Structures are given as structure tokens and as C-alpha cells.
């Protein structure tokens, strides 16, 4: 197996395991690029004047789909390319603005195998700024059972996200 396909297997994961944190210095470019990449043209994500004077926020702020993309990147940085997202649940508690340093930090809360023989890890991730929780995400991520397994081959009844 090439280095590019190296992925965690489910037996390498334990409940309580902490994922390495990811820190990002957020700029206006981060916010605008993320919004436009997600085809979100709403002005509060690119127009400072609109965000401040119409929305009453302190600046433009990161949109939800881009936050989802950050969570996905964080999880698959950890799992490797065979890690396959099954489910994500978000709860938004606050906004992320230019000038913030956002930190994503996750902990494994469940590890198991479903009835179809697919390995799964549940990871709870917090997106924080200065220690304040801005968004929480609980993700269910399929992981290979062995080096020869590949969750992406599962379809129909064999895929139970």
C-alpha cells in the first residue's frame, strides 16, 4: 500500500483518544474564499459594511457550509483517505470572524462495528476561539477494519451511516 493510502484502521482507535488539534488564523480571505467556494453569495459573508451595519455583527463571519468543510478536513487529516464520513451533526453557538484564531479539537467517543461489518468511530469536535465554543460537531466516520478493507466500496445495505 502506498503512503498516500495510509489510513487509520478501527483497531488503532480507542474511546477517549484525542485527535491532534488544528489551529487556523482566520482572515477576511478565509471567510470570503470559504463562502464563495460554497456558492454562498449572501453579503454578511463578504461585505464588511453590510455585516456590521445591517446584521449588527462585528465583521463578516464564516458560513455554515464552510465550517462543515473545515470539520471534514480535520477528520480526514486524522483518518487518512479511507476514512468515509457517514454522518455529521452541528450545533452553532457563535460566529467566527477575521482576526480569530480558530482551533478544532476532537475526541473519540465511540468505536464499534455495525451489523454489516463496517468499522466506525464517533468523534466529537469543538471549534473554539480563545477557548469559547463556537460550533460543536459530532461525526460518525467509517474506518477500515484492516489494511485491506475500504469503506468506500460499501453500498446499499452494506453502508449504514
Amino acid at each position, binding site marked *: 500500500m*502506498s503512503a*498516500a*493510502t495510509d489510513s487509520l484502521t478501527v483497531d488503532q482507535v480507542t474511546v477517549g483518544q484525542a485527535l491532534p488539534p488544528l489551529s487556523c488564523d482566520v482572515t477576511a480571505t*478565509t471567510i470570503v*474564499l*470559504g463562502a*464563495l*467556494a*460554497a*456558492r*454562498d*453569495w449572501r453579503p454578511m459573508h463578504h461585505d464588511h459594511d453590510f455585516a456590521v451595519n445591517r446584521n449588527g455583527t462585528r465583521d463578516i463571519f464564516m458560513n*455554515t*457550509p*464552510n465550517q*462543515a*468543510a*473545515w*470539520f*471534514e*478536513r480535520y477528520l*480526514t*487529516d486524522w483518518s487518512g*483517505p*479511507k476514512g*468515509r*464520513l*457517514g*454522518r*455529521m*451533526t*452541528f*450545533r*452553532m453557538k457563535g460566529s467566527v470572524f477575521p482576526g480569530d484564531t480558530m482551533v478544532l479539537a476532537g475526541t473519540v467517543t465511540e468505536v464499534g462495528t455495525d451489523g454489516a461489518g463496517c468499522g466506525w468511530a464517533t468523534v466529537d469536535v469543538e471549534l473554539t476561539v480563545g477557548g469559547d465554543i463556537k460550533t460543536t460537531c459530532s461525526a460518525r466516520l467509517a474506518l477500515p477494519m484492516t489494511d485491506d478493507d*475500504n469503506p*468506500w466500496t460499501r*453500498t446499499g445495505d452494506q*453502508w449504514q*451511516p
Partner: protein
Amino acid sequence: MTATDLPTDVEALIGVGQYEQDGEFPVERGYIWTSCASVENGNPLFWDDDLAAKLTGGPIAMPTMLSLWFRPHHWAPGRTEQALPLQVHFDLKERFDLPEAVMTDNTIVFYEPVRPGDRLRTRQVLQSVSAPKTTKLGTGRFWVIDVEYRNQDGELVGIESYTGFGYRRGAS
């Protein structure tokens, strides 16, 4: 609450697909790469075609891009108006005369991978509406709306589930 506590016209909508809609354009790789770049996602599945062929049978989109394919162009020739995303949510606000609303939870479940060239289709399904409840925001109702996404072969590619709370401020 039991379903019979709901007005019959609302009860009749539960489990029924509404606002079926085709995406305005096929899934394309430029947006996949731009989305990866926006979060510095170096997952080789999205950058290495040989690896994608080996693991996923060819290139795929980042799963979390699901709703992106239904956001309309900022402008399109001849366009007059279109259904709002989550139109069912706005319908319920109007039906129950609840001027305010918040989304409390958002869950996305991923099924078949989305691939470049796919033409996706979506519909909204009301799953449940609660009895009237009072929270610190006001009095209103919670509802759960699923947005289903399928590809051109009818395969389910994902479901976004939104929990909304429509309410009237200060009511008790």
C-alpha cells in the same frame, strides 16, 4: 404528541416530498478543488486521480459539499423568482403565524458519493411537528425537515435534516 393533535392540512404533509428541484448545473471539479483549497484539504482522494480510481472508483466531491450544488447562480438570464431553500420551513412559519424562527440542529447523512458530472435532484420532506412549546425565546413549535438529495440514477446521495423552532416572542 400524536399526529392527530396537528391541523389536518399539516398532518397530511408529513412524509410527503415537496419542492422537488433539479440542480442548475452538473457537479464539476473546479468547485471541488476550490472547496478543498478554502480549507486547505489535502486529502489525496480529491487531488490524485489514480488513488481516487483505486479507492472510490474515480473522482468524488467532498461529502460536505452536498448542498452547494443547489445554491443558485447569483444571477441567471430571465430568472424571476425561485423557491427558497427550506421553503417548507417558511411555509410552517406562515401556517402557524410564527414570525420568528431559529434552526437548532443540522444533521447531514452521507450515502453514495457525489461525482463530477452528476446531475442532482432534491426534495424537502416534513418529518414531524411538535405540540406548542414555550422556551426562553417564546412560544411556538419545533419541526424537523429533511432535504433529500439523489443523483441522476435515483440513488440517494445524502439527507440533510434540519430542526427548526418557529415562535412568537414573549408569548406564554
